[in-house]
């Protein structure tokens, strides 16, 4: 049970870190406001956001039930 909780928390931390990186990239690109910033926003920021959110959703659906 403890190992299961640790695993979920670990995944939450990784997903959260990925999303934070994506959000920071997004904020920097919005402030920068050059044509290349849109490309970086979508390609880099979007990738981190997507990876973080998908990992979070995956961690939700892949939690083994307590009786497993």
């Amino acid at each position, binding site marked *: 049970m403890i190992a299961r909780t640790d695993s979920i928390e670990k995944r939450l931390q990784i997903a959260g870190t990925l999303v934070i990186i994506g959000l920071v990239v997004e904020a920097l690109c*919005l402030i920068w*406001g050059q044509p290349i910033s849109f*490309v970086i926003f979508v390609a880099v*920021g979007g990738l981190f956001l997507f990876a973080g*959110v998908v990992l979070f959703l995956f961690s939700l659906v892949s939690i083994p039930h307590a009786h497993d």
Partner: protein
Amino acid sequence: MPYATILIVSLVLFSAALITVLVARPGIASTRGGKILAFMILFFLPVLCGAIGVSSEMERSTTTAFCLSCHTMEAYGKSLRIDDPGHLPAAHFQNHRVPPDKACYTCHEDYAMFGTMKVKLQGLHHVWVYYFGTPPAPGEIKLYQPFNNRECLHCHLGARSFEEGAMHTADPETLPAIKANTLSCMSCHDTVHDIAHLKDAKFWKEKQ
């Protein structure tokens, strides 16, 4: 920086701060309420921030300042200030026939279904070539396709000056041909972004 951008950046940083708390104390998500909170913070807020950010960046990419921020486009920006009513883009820009802050986009938008998506993809190609390829000299830049009358008619269709203009009505076949895009507007209104003669041009100085 526009207020809208400040608000969006604030929301993005606020979301990042909330996620940092969750990352630092992941035990919050162990309860039922904590899981709902985690879902709001790690799914709803990032998706919302991403959507608002994309919308904001798309809107900014329609501004004249955005287009002219590329060095290659400087000459085209200058051509908007040529002091000559016969110079088509300059006359439109200076007389606010197009919104001055969206001058490039208003004429070079594709007013067809999925046209916005098409011009955005072309814009991304421009950015790619500008940073990672060899951008052509300003004088060598060409449109992907001949200018479609549809872009002009988006505003001018139905306008009295267009429908009843002496040159447009002198020959009864002219107006139908323009509307069918078989006779280009540019065949008569042919002074467009004449950047080859910029050094000889007189420029309009806008009063502050």
